[in-house]
């Protein structure tokens, strides 16, 4: 690590981050975060590319009429909007309920430890 890097990270040297990283609390936070966002990211990308391939190579199927002039292609396209809105809402409620409390707790502990060590947390 070059020295100049430290300049932009004032106040970061007092905390033993490896210890925090190994703590059960933090590992739980990381597990929850990745356990939620990774599968969801894979799922929405698969659904998006499935749609792209259908639009690209299955013109017949996409132009199947469903109701009036509304066809399968339009419904699947609007379906992408619906899933995007739904995933957004789902993630926010998950993060508010399951991630933020743990993250707040860890951050609170670190800040308290800082204060106890007389190390002004100058960046907050």
């Amino acid at each position: 690590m070059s020295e100049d890097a430290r300049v932009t990270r004032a106040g970061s040297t007092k905390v033993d981050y490896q210890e925090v990283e190994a703590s059960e609390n933090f590992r739980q936070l990381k597990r929850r975060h990745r356990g939620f966002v990774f599968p969801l990211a894979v799922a929405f990308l698969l659904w998006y590319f499935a749609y792209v391939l259908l639009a690209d190579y299955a013109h017949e199927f996409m132009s199947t009429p469903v109701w009036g002039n509304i066809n399968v292609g339009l419904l699947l396209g609007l379906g992408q909007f619906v899933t995007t809105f739904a995933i957004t809402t789902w993630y926010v409620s998950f993060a508010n309920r399951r991630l933020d409390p743990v993250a707040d707790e860890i951050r609170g502990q670190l800040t308290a430890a800082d204060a106890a060590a007389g190390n002004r947390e100058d960046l907050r």
Partner: protein
Amino acid sequence: MSATLAAAASTSVGNPVLNISIFGAFVAVTLIVVLRASRNNKTAADYYAAGRSFTGPQNGTAIAGDYLSAASFLGICGAIAINGYDGFLYSIGFLVAWLVALLLVAELMRNTGKFTMADVLSFRLAQRPVRVAAATTTLVVCFFYLLAQMAGAGGLVSLLLGIDDRVGQSIVVAVVGALMIIYVLIGGMKGTTWVQIIKAALLIAGAFIMTIWVLAINGFNLSELLGAAAATGGEAVLSPGLQYGLTDVTKLDFISLALALVLGTAGLPHVLMRFYTVPTAREARRSVVWAIWLIGLFYLFTLVLGYGAGALIGKDVILAAPGGVNSAAPLLAFTLGGPILLGIISAIAFATILAVVAGLTITAATSFSHDVYAGVIKRGKTAPGAEVRVARITVVVIGIVAIIGGIGVQGQNVAFLVALAFAVAASANLPTILYSLFWRRFSTRGALWSMYGGLGSAIILIAFSPVVSGSETAMIQGVDFHWFPLNNPGLVSIPLGFLLGFLGTITSSRREDPAVAAEMDVRSLTGYGAEGATKG
């Protein structure tokens, strides 16, 4: 109706004086807001990140303002009006891409960085080479995007103001550039953000009114609207394939574009930088949520507007009008509400260009002054105020380059530049961002290989593609040196960017400091040590 429209469209539509007056009112109002917002621009955090004082909803609206460029508004409406369903495919890619930003990037970036993408990428890697690489890709993406916007400004004036000659268009480009320099110079990030917010509100409101109007004409029945569009443009507009279904190559081209759109957004530097204008990761999350809803609703409006323009005006009239595809939305406004609605929509389109250009410029200037000047040349030891001074000088330089570039590309077909900017962002920026946030072993060499490899391959492939030479619509006519068949390099350059990052890392013998890796891990997820709001 369509005869008068065609006659009007052959020169300009509506009343140029009215168009200019409405745009002038926008400029006056935003300038007052910018001046008021700039009163306490003192520190770097004020200038680059608006003192981190914006709320999630405000920042989300500004993100929508940044993202819904003239290409989105005029381009997508026109694409749907001409090519029907295939135009709709753009908006889906542009929207779904936000999930990458929401789930994987926004909050973690906000927690780890201060002002730029390079702050995050260089957190645990070698500072100087990574900052230089990240600043390079940032400047390249911003430059392509800027050029596309400036070219769009020239095209728009011929339609809206009745200025057809080259000198007149060049003057308009210079005025747009000069206004942008004033906004960014005086207002910094705070002023720029307010311009984005005002513009996003106007744009979405304008599109909403026109959408309701078009739906009302068709009895609020989507099927009826589609039927009307099909009656004018043929049944084919309702199904995919009109634009990209022609040959096997165009089909591959579409996959390439889809890849660049969905993965590019979360690597766009001017979007990433917006996450630093809020005080916490939670506000960054709220920003993205607001952005997704606003952008999603807007794209639903463009679906109605595009088919509405196809039905009410027709493909031939749109293509014959000055501005071509881009004239669909303004012509629709004229058909619905006459010169007044046209004036409003034109002013909004201009405001859009102005605001997006301002957002790009402050991003590029920040990257240069914070990463290259302060981080690399001065090694993090700058005199107080020097960094912001350099940023301001850079703003002027970029503004002048944008004006010269914008005048230079008048009349050339540079529509591919926006898609190219997305492809570069997806190939050079996103792999390094994801790797450095989620892959502990990721090394400096991996980052450099990925950024330079992704950037280089995207640019080389586009230089030897049909958009530059060897096709009817190519930028350079009369010669043919193309060997890459696709119009978008993403299909090759994006996997290459990811692969090079992986190969560079596993062949790298140098291990990065585990203590810093742990620090990044903890800070990115908890927000500990992240800079909060500087003041109220």
